């Protein structure tokens, strides 16, 4: 088992080690497994020679907005689909569910044309609005609906007797119970948005508007060859925060993601 673990752990280890080596040592032989003289200036270079701080901020606020937005709208819609027998409910839900079948690539040309005709290319808007309301949020709505279906009717009946109206039933009775479902929605939405690659590549042209995944591929010198140590240093800064959160909230992560089978 320990041997099997090597390919899982080694790349991350190697990434951190090599991000602290001077440029002439990253591809040296024999390979260096420990940065004996860590060169922290690589990190400084990653931030000063490139708009990394700006790109970091982009990724962070886009991921947070999309996560919060998705949580709000998917819990409202999931609740209505599960518990309010409004006319059209049974027809609308399967229709929206078909959004699950549609990979980003299939619709990105028309979406790009749409964004372009509205003059919103090279702004963060398409990266925020489309994920919250479009195909990526369908899975979240589905998960919330599945959860709200499992809430016992007796609880809502008790709420009715206490004089709660429909919104109160949602907000005071059902939503507080939905914490685990909301947590897994939050986790996979954040991860998906944090890793978004094709969309920023298509919608953004200005380096300052890039999100991290696209930004990381830009670390080359004027001749197009890789500045490995700087590139890896930048990569480390995007990996470490997520890894720390993962180790802290591990159980949520593993169970939440296992429920959803997220792609990526």
């Amino acid at each position, binding site marked *: 088992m320990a041997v099997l673990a090597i390919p899982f752990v080694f790349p991350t280890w190697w990434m951190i080690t090599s991000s602290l080596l001077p440029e002439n040592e990253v591809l040296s032989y024999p390979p260096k497994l420990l940065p004996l003289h860590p060169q922290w200036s690589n990190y400084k270079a990653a931030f000063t020679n490139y708009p990394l701080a700006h790109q970091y901020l982009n990724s962070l606020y886009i991921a947070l907005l999309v996560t919060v937005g998705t949580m709000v709208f998917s819990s409202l819609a999931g609740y209505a689909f599960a518990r309010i027998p409004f006319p059209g409910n049974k027809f609308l839900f399967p229709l929206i569910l078909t959004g699950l079948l549609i990979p980003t690539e299939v619709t990105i040309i028309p979406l790009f044309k749409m964004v372009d005709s509205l003059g919103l290319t090279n702004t963060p808007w398409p990266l925020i609005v489309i994920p919250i309301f479009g195909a990526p949020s369908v899975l979240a709505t589905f998960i919330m609906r599945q959860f709200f279906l499992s809430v016992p009717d007796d609880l809502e009946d008790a709420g009715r007797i206490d004089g709660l109206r429909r919104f109160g039933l949602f907000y005071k009775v059902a939503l507080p119970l939905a914490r685990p479902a909301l947590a897994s929605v939050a986790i996979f939405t954040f991860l998906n948005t944090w890793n978004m690659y094709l969309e920023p590549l298509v919608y953004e042209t200005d380096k300052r508007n890039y999100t991290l995944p696209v930004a990381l591929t830009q670390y080359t010198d004027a001749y197009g060859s*890789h500045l490995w140590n700087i590139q890896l240093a930048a990569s480390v800064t995007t990996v470490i925060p997520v890894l720390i959160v993962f180790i802290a909230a591990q159980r949520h992560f593993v169970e939440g993601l296992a429920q959803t089978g997220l792609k990526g």
Partner: protein
Amino acid sequence: MTGSTGSTAPTGPTGPIRRRFQGRRRQDNILGWLFVLAPTLGFLAFVLYPLAAVIYYSFHSSNLLSGVTTYAGTKNYSQLLHDPATGSVAKATALFCVGLVVINISLAMLLAVLLNNKLRGTTVFRTLFFSPVVVSLVAWTITWNFLLQNNGGINAMLHTVGITGPNWLRGNNSALLSVVIVQVFKNVGLNMVLFLAALQGVPRSLLEAGAIDGAGPWRRFRSIVLPMISPTTLLTTIITISGSLQVFAQIQILTAGGPNDRTNVLVYFFYQQAFDNHDFGYGSAIAVVLFVIILVLTMIQWHLRKRWVFHES
């Protein structure tokens, strides 16, 4: 799919009570509509319209310079049929998919079985095997790109034990395998967790009965465990297949479709035509083909699911 389980208000016999219920009902309907308004509008604007549009574009040629779109019939589709790259793209996509599914599913199963044996330190190992899932995809890919360089870490390791490694990402035979391996280690943790949950659902009594009947560990795994976890195997296979059709960033970073289109999978080919060559008509035709493939796979999945639910009950 079960229907919605809202409590339907009984219609009371007397006037005022009935009126109150009807008022409640109307309020419920309005709220219900309000609650689902956002995803409904989003579906119309960002799913249904683009889907119709991409089909429309695929039968048109667009001239980027003049911005004029002209009807082109099936020109884009016949172009795809006669494109010299199409054969390589189909081959790369299929090979990538098969390679990923076979390696990913068998490794996920192996890891799950090992973890299920409740040795000491399983939690630690589970975390280790799962950790690449949360490492951002591009950072993971860049690291492997670095490791797989001709003078990179992997070949340096091989060199210390006296093996001269290939130039992984440039070799005709090793490039596709390299991309598959990078993808497997990234996401095998997800399937592993699903298998682990399935293994924990296999009743001990069954395994003990098998042991009493004289079945060895391998025989027990094959005849008892495998059939018991077959629904999970189907599910993970489907997830992995549809995931394999959407590996774009990895290809772009590691091989850019090379060498000689050996790793030019469908979504990368699509991106090149649509956004590198700015041929939206041709790109749309490729996108429609991708959609049809996904649709067919989904239908197969539905078909299998019916049989598999039967098998479960």
